[in-house]
Each structure stands twice: as structure tokens, then as C-alpha cells.
């Protein structure tokens, strides 16, 4: 199982991936600049696209001023996956200083050029790609560069969870926990009530016993004997003498 933050998927795998795993919020389409036939047409198209569409660029064309400017132009589109002045771009391993400088010159303060590792690519079921983790980031990002096998092999899918899916799962568990806590509290209250009832019930039985003892030991005695008992108490000083007026 892998838990990721962002999921970058190369354009040619996107349709297949969505069919297998469903549409996830974190999906960022990785577009190869070399595969865009007309940059101006693509700019217009993406500028008018749905706000939920997110993309990033694999810069795999000649690093001329003009081409880097096109990358900058794309980066200003709201769909480009970035975080204010922090931006990420993908390129083949090698000397990418010009690319970094080109983006920095337009005010991006944190430019990250991501390249596929020369070794360490991963295969997760039907998905090929690589994982990378930026400094300060709590979760890695997954880049899908290829997919194989027909759609029927769904059983081979390795569980891949996005952050939002994890959040949903945790929220569900939290909800269940809360429900169980509530049930437990109700059960405890009921138990307390039973204890109270039992206590009272037991006390009542005790009272009855005492009353029976009193009746048996005192109440049955003759009246003259009880009155004599009072006189004895007065004589022995256990009771004050009170005369009725």
C-alpha cells in the first residue's frame, strides 16, 4: 500500500488510470511539451477549461528562451499545479539550471525541477512510475509514467490511497468511534440506574426487617409495661420529667 500527497500521471496513462482507480482530487496531468502540437492553441484551450483541471509540464523540448517563456506562460494558468510562488516542473535528469533560472526570473521563489530517478522506478500492480518527496513535505508524491495490462486485471491493483481518501476513511472511523462512545455512555447510565434501584430495593427490605423486629420486640408488649418503662427511664435519669400544663 502507498499513501501519497499528489498524484502526477502522464497524459497517455490518464484515461486508463481513471478507469481503473476512479477519479481522484489529487490527480495532476503531466503533459509533455513535445506532445503539444500548437502551444498557442493549447494555451487558449486550457485557459478556458474547467477549474478542477490540474496539470504540470514535462519540459522535454529545446531549452530556448522562447520555449522556457512558453513554460512560464503555462505556469500562470490557474490549472498549473503550484502553490503561490512555489512551483514544480518535470524534466529529464541533467543540467536544468536554465529552466530553474527562467522560472525564478518571473518571481517564483521556490522552483523544484523533478527528474525521474535513474534507478528506483517502482511498479505497483499495473502502474509504473516513481516516488519523490520534497523537503518539508509530510507525504511523498507519486508519478505515474506508464501502465500496463488490460482492464480485466483489476484484481491485481495495488491499493493506492490518496490523502483525501485517507481523510475520508479516518473521518468514518471517528464517526463510528463517537457512536460507540455514545452507546457506551448510555449503557453506563443504565447500569447506574439499575444499581440505584437495587440499592433502594435492598434498603426497603432492611427497613421491613427492622420494622418487623421492632414490632416483634416492642410493639407487642402491654401498654402498662411500656409506661412503667418510661418511669424507670425518668428515675434513672435517661429522660427528663415533663409535666403537661
Amino acid at each position, binding site marked *: 500500500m502507498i499513501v501519497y500527497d499528489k498524484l502526477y500521471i502522464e497524459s497517455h496513462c490518464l484515461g486508463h488510470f481513471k478507469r481503473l482507480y476512479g477519479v481522484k482530487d489529487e490527480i495532476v496531468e503531466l503533459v509533455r511539451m513535445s506532445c503539444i502540437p500548437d502551444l*498557442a492553441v493549447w*494555451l*487558449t484551450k486550457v*485557459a*478556458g477549461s474547467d477549474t478542477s483541471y490540474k496539470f504540470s509540464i514535462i519540459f522535454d523540448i529545446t531549452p530556448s*528562451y522562447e520555449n522556457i*517563456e512558453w513554460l*512560464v*506562460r503555462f*505556469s*500562470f*494558468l*490557474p490549472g*498549473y499545479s*503550484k502553490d*503561490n*510562488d512555489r512551483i514544480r516542473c518535470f524534466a529529464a535528469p541533467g543540467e536544468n539550471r536554465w529552466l530553474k533560472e527562467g522560472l525564478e*526570473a*518571473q*518571481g*517564483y*521563489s521556490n522552483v523544484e525541477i523533478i527528474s525521474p530517478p535513474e534507478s528506483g522506478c517502482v511498479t505497483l500492480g499495473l502502474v509504473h512510475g516513481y516516488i519523490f518527496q520534497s523537503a518539508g513535505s509530510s507525504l511523498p508524491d507519486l508519478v505515474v509514467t506508464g501502465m500496463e495490462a488490460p482492464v480485466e486485471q483489476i484484481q491485481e491493483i495495488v491499493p493506492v490511497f490518496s490523502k483525501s481518501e485517507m481523510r475520508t476513511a479516518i473521518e468514518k472511523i471517528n464517526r463510528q468511534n463517537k457512536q460507540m462512545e455514545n452507546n457506551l455512555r448510555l449503557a453506563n447510565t443504565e447500569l447506574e440506574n439499575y444499581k440505584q434501584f437495587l440499592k433502594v430495593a435492598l434498603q426497603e427490605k432492611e427497613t421491613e426487617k427492622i420494622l418487623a423486629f421492632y414490632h416483634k420486640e416492642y410493639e407487642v408488649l402491654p401498654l402498662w409495661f411500656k409506661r412503667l418503662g418510661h418511669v424507670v427511664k425518668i428515675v434513672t435519669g435517661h429522660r427528663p420529667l415533663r409535666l403537661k400544663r
Partner: protein
Amino acid sequence: MRIALIEYRYYADSTEDFYTEQLRNLVSRRILVTNQAVNNIDAKTVVLNHTNQGKDIGAKLIGIDFLIKTNEEFDVLVMVHDKKSLHSPLGNYWGRELKKIVGDAYLPVFIKAMKKRNVGICCASNYIKSEFDKPSGKFNTVNNDILFELIQKYKLRPSPSFEFVAGTIFGCKWAPIKVFFINNPPLQIRKTLERGNVQDNRKGSYTHSWERMLSWVITSGGYSVKGI
């Protein structure tokens, strides 16, 4: 008349709506440069993000670049932004005055002015400024050196009074803007602008110099500045 509107919205608490019903009917393309969340976008509007470089000038250059690269044709370009000028106690007043050209009351006057062949720029009349001091041959501003450098570099021939629109909220003819920026790519110019909230109180800046240059790009084509 085909009008392009470049609107820069910087402040998160910006509640102004330049894009009135009247303006909406006139505009054929609106570029909204902002990093804020935007709702109710119509089909004419393209939203672009920006980095904090070159203040409103940097944002307007992003908009101009987009319009040129997408190759749409216009007659007039209108540039506005949510000017607050927090460094000045008169900031709000400046902003209101400058933006009146796109308000419902003055919009018909603005359109009429822009239809005139010789009018290159139309703006709030109080903001047509000139800093050029003829006797000394210098600009009466800390940006003097940078201005001379840029005029020379871009071979501009503004009117002798070097009039410009302070505040960079104005409407102008699209043709001279397009010709100039095709030859001098806006993003290349944007690279030279300062980052952050740069001021020109003590030291000149390329950002504030381009505030003047944008007007001169148009007046160099022999156009006049009309104040309303």
C-alpha cells in the same frame, strides 16, 4: 469596437466590481490576473495567476503577453487594478478617480474618445502627469536614470512633454501596444521588474519606470492623451 480588459486583482478583500453590466456588454475578452478565488466567471473571462513581481505592471504584462500569444484582435485595451496605494493617505481617492473611466457614468465618454483616430490614451484627467524639466533636460523623479536607459533601449519617441498616466489605469489603442510587445516580449520585460511591494520614494525602480513607459509606448506612435 472590440475591447480587451486586463483587470488585476491583488487584494483578498477587494470588493470592487469593475466589470459592470455596461462594461461586460462592451468587452470581448477579459483577462483577470489574480491569485484570489474567483466566482462567476463568464465565457469572455480568462483567469491568470501571477507572482509578486512588478506589482500591477508585472500583472498587466502577463495579460498583454496572453493577448498577443492567443492572437486575438482588438481595437482598445483597458487596464485597471484594485489600486489602494496603502502608503498614501490619499490612496482611496486616487483609486476612485482613476477608475472612473470604466464606471457607468463615464464609459460612453470614454468610448467616444477612443473612437477618435488621434487619441491613443484616455484616462482620468487629473492623472495625466509630466515630470520632464525642459531647461535641465531631466525627469524630475528618482527614476530619471532608468527612464533614459529604457527610452534609449526601446527607441521610444514620446511627445516632447513626456506625458504619462500616473496610476496606470487607462484605456488605449491596442495596435501600438501589440506592435511594441511583439518586438519586445512582455515576459522578457517582466523579468527586469522588482519583486514585492517596491516603492520609488528614495531610489528609482524599473517597475515605476515602466508605469511611465506604458504610456510612452503609445504616445511614441504619435497618439495623444485624452483626459476625462
